[in-house]
Every structure is written in C-alpha cells, then in structure tokens.
C-alpha cells in the first residue's frame, strides 16, 4: 500500500510517499523560515498562503522521485491537528479533494503522533513499549508509548515549550528568528556556569516542566548587562545547559518510573547536540538506549505523517471511506487519540 503524507500544521509544507512494503520512497519539504524571519515569528495568514502555493509542486516532486504516478496512491494521510487552523485547513482540503478524485481513503493524523513514531522510520528502531520525549517549539512532553495509538501523557510543560524558550531567549540576545539553532551555536563559544541560571522544576518530584521562569532569568541577566560579547555566549551556554539538564533528568526519571530502558526523542529540539550528549551519557550509565529520528525528520515533515498513516492502516484502522466529510482540530489533545479499531 502506498500512502501519501501531507503536513501543513505550521510553517513547513511536507509531502512524502511511504510504501508499507518498501518503506519511505520519497519526501520533500519546504520551510517558510526565511519568509517569517522578517516578521520575528510565524504569521499564520502568510503561512497558509504559502502552503497552498507549495502543495502541488512538492507532490509532483515526491512522485517523480519515487517514480510513481497519482494512480499508485492507495491512501492519503494528512495532519488534521493540532496546529494553526488556517494552515491545517489547506492540507486537509487538498488531501480530501485529491482523495475524492482518486477514490482512495484518507487518514486524518495527529501531528504529535507523527513525531512520536518518527524514530520508527530509522534503520534501528525501538520496540514497544517505550518512553518518548517530545521537544519542539510547540511542545515539551513525556509520553509512555505502549503501542500504535496507545499513548499516556506522563508530564508536560506548564508554560513555554523548550523550543519556544530557546527562540525567546535568542530574541532577547538579539539573535533573530528562529533563534534556537543560533543560540545553540553561540553557546558553543561560551562556558556554562560562569553565569548561573536556575534548573526549573528539576527537583519537583514529578515529570512536569516549566521554562518561562528561565526566560525571565535571562531577561534579568540581559538587563544587568550580561547580554553582550563573551558574556552573551556564556549566558547562552548556561541557558542551554539549564534546559538540557532538566530535559535529560526528567526523561531518565520517566524511564525509571515506568521500568523502561528505551527512550525516543522527537521534535526539533531533539536535534540539539548538547541534549543528545547528555541523554546518551545518562542512558549509557543506566544501560538504556536513546533513539533519535534522522536529523532531516526532527522538524515537521510529511514522512512522519505518511508513516503514521501507514502504521494505522497496518494496525487495522479502518477510516470512513469516500464521504469526503472532514474537519480539522487545531486543539487536539493527544490523549483523545483512539487506538486503531480492528474491523472485519
């Protein structure tokens, strides 16, 4: 079965073709980062306008790369939520129209389920059950993943997501948008510990996170004149150290509390080198193992959506075929996701 995946929940348009026998055949991505840069953040209306320009060219690119035609597509998986309403609607409308034309079924996919399962696209993959640390610009969550569609939220950020804290701190240091990766690069030149920042909720005894206080601490430091020159680099290094300390400690705690030794890391912050170093060190000591998606699949992408759709099909999920009724879910708690329903 060939599944087309469409992702358009925020500022990246991603399309991919996943074959249940042959694996990932092609994926293509257009990032809007450069477009939103001038605005200092994602402008939802501009994001939607760009998605609707990109879908067909990207679709044609993946079909060419996979040497397939439109008639080879057996199902269309698309991100139905959570995300920006207008952006989601573009992908959903196109997917449903296309499915109607091709007479194939659609699979509305939860964006975070896509991220959660993305490490399963790698050559070496974890086995169910495992713990997942989902860290991106929109989410910081620890989940227990028992099987496809069977997810348990263990803890999440009470305020800012980790990636959001990275971006906001970068903005305070004048690193532009999106500043997360720029902040990580600046941190390489500095030394953590010269300036001290708190490790929020490190000893809270639960699996919750909070990063907005850390951002405020950076703001205070910047106001005290520590936001320039080598001190800015030291501040960036300390900030990165604080965030990754908390993420690594809680991820380890989540595994221990659930008697598990496999951790899956997904989302854009999962690409952070310092986070990977800490997790690898902590889990090697613990005789556990950390699985990461390929770097190209850490950000939003269509491959994870196609893959997720394929897994749901294989698990026996039987979506309603052919009615063409659809709705997006900009706010969609992952806990609401149903397990695949086995039908005769």
């Amino acid at each position: 079965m060939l599944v087309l995946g469409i992702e358009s929940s925020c500022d990246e348009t991603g399309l991919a073709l996943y074959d249940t026998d042959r694996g990932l055949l092609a994926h293509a991505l257009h990032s809007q980062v450069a477009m939103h840069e001038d605005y200092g953040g994602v402008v939802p209306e501009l994001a939607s306008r760009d998605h609707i320009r990109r879908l067909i060219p990207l679709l044609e690119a993946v079909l060419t790369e996979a040497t397939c035609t439109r008639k080879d597509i057996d199902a269309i998986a698309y991100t139905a939520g959570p995300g920006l309403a207008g952006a989601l609607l573009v992908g959903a409308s196109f997917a449903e129209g296309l499915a109607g034309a091709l007479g194939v079924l659609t699979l509305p996919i939860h964006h975070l389920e896509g991220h959660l399962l993305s490490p399963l696209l790698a050559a070496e993959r974890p086995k169910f059950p495992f713990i997942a640390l989902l860290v991106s610009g929109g989410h910081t969550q620890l989940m227990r993943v028992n099987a496809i569609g069977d997810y348990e939220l263990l803890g999440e950020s009470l305020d800012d997501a980790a990636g959001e804290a990275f971006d906001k701190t970068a903005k305070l240091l004048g690193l532009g948008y999106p500043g997360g990766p720029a902040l990580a690069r600046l941190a390489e030149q500095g030394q953590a510990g010269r300036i001290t920042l708190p490790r929020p909720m490190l000893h809270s005894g639960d699996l919750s996170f909070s990063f907005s206080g850390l951002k405020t601490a950076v703001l205070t430091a910047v106001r005290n004149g520590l936001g320039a020159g080598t001190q800015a680099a030291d501040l960036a290094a300390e900030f990165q150290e604080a965030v990754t300390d908390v993420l690594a400690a809680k991820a380890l705690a989540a595994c221990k509390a659930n008697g598990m030794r496999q951790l899956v890391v997904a989302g854009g912050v999962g690409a952070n080198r310092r986070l990977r170093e800490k997790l690898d060190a902590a889990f090697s000591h613990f005789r556990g193992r950390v699985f990461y998606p390929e770097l190209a699949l850490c950000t939003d992408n269509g491959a994870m959506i196609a893959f997720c759709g394929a897994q749901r099909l294989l698990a026996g999920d039987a979506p309603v075929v052919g009615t063409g009724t659809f709705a997006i879910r900009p706010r969609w708690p992952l806990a609401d996701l149903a397990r695949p329903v086995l039908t005769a």
Partner: protein
Amino acid sequence: MKLLAFETSTRWISVALWCDGACLERREELPNSGSEHLLPWAHALLAEAGVALTQLDGLAFGAGPGGFTGLRLACGVTQGLAWGLDKPVVPVSTLAALALNAGDGDIWTVLDARMNEVYSGVYRVAGDTVSELSPPVCVPPGQIAVSPAPTCGGDGFISYAEALPRSSFIPDLWPTAAAVARLAAPALARGEGLHAAAAQPLYVRDKVALTTAERLARGGVR
C-alpha cells in the same frame, strides 16, 4: 460541458454542478465552516445528475475576494480534485459572481472585509457575461463618497450601512457556486482553464502583517 464549482468566500457555502447549460446547486448558510459539507454535496449532485467525476471537463471556484480561510477551503478542495482528475481549473471573481446574481445592468458590489474595510468592485452584467468596470479593491468604507453604479449589492452595505453611499440596493445578493459555474463554463470552453497548481485565491488584501522593521518604525517593540 460539465463542471463542478465551489463557493465558500462568505457564510453562504455552495456547490454547483454545471451540465451543458443546466445547473444543480446545494447551498446553505454555515457561518463557521463548510468543510463537512463540500465534498458530500458534490458527490450528491453528481449522483443526482448521473455524472461521474471523471466525466467532468473541469472545475471552478470562487477565488476571491472574501474570507481568507473560506477562499482556501474552496481552492484546496478544487486543487485536490483537479490535480487528481488531471482537469483544468477556472478561478472566478466572487464579486463578479455576486454581480451576475443581480441580473443585467451596472452594479456596485461590496463585501464586508472586516477590520473596518470592504472589498469593492463595479461590474456590468449582460446575460451570462460580466465585465469588470472597476477591479476589486480593499478600502475603508468611508473612502467611497459616491455610488459608482445605479444599483448595489453585497453584505458590505449591511455591515457599513452608515458609512457607504447607497444607490438602489438589491438585498440578499451573494456569490454562489451556480454563478461561479455560469461564468466559468464559457471560459473553460475557450480553453482558459489553468493547471491546478496555478489556481490560487485572489486575496486583494495583501498586507496582512507588519515586519519587525515596520513595527519598530511605528514605535513598537521587538
């Protein structure tokens, strides 16, 4: 000539099937979204007429101006269908479709653009053809001092009744999928249909956000 048309630029959502001059339409007032209905309505109309999707010569949609989300709903569904069927698309002006519904004569069409602005355009209707006398613009209603045509219509005259000058007002005029189809059919016959990827919304309001530099210039913060 067989074509399917979608119109979702206002709170009136409609789908029409044009079959060699005859037109079937489904239309409802749905202020929040039409996504649940568009494709089921299309399938129902096709079944009613005994036409298969593959028999269509092309597709059409109300391209704008109008609510951005609605424009993209119709555009996205149309693009998907058209690309999947490998058929051409005719984007149709929503104000021209509204004008067609008024019948023969010159008409000033105005749709509420929110944020204290209106989409305004002037059209001449003669039978099944609509010519544009003044292209759509997005302006504050107070900027238009004199009615540019003897008749007028559109929800802009309800939302901004005080601010807009008025000529002979025709109530309850909306862009409809049937009007979109009527305007698209001859264009499609003339070979003016576009490849699905080229079929894009016509927003008219193009400035939707301020850049950081513009915000700073206006005394804002980073």
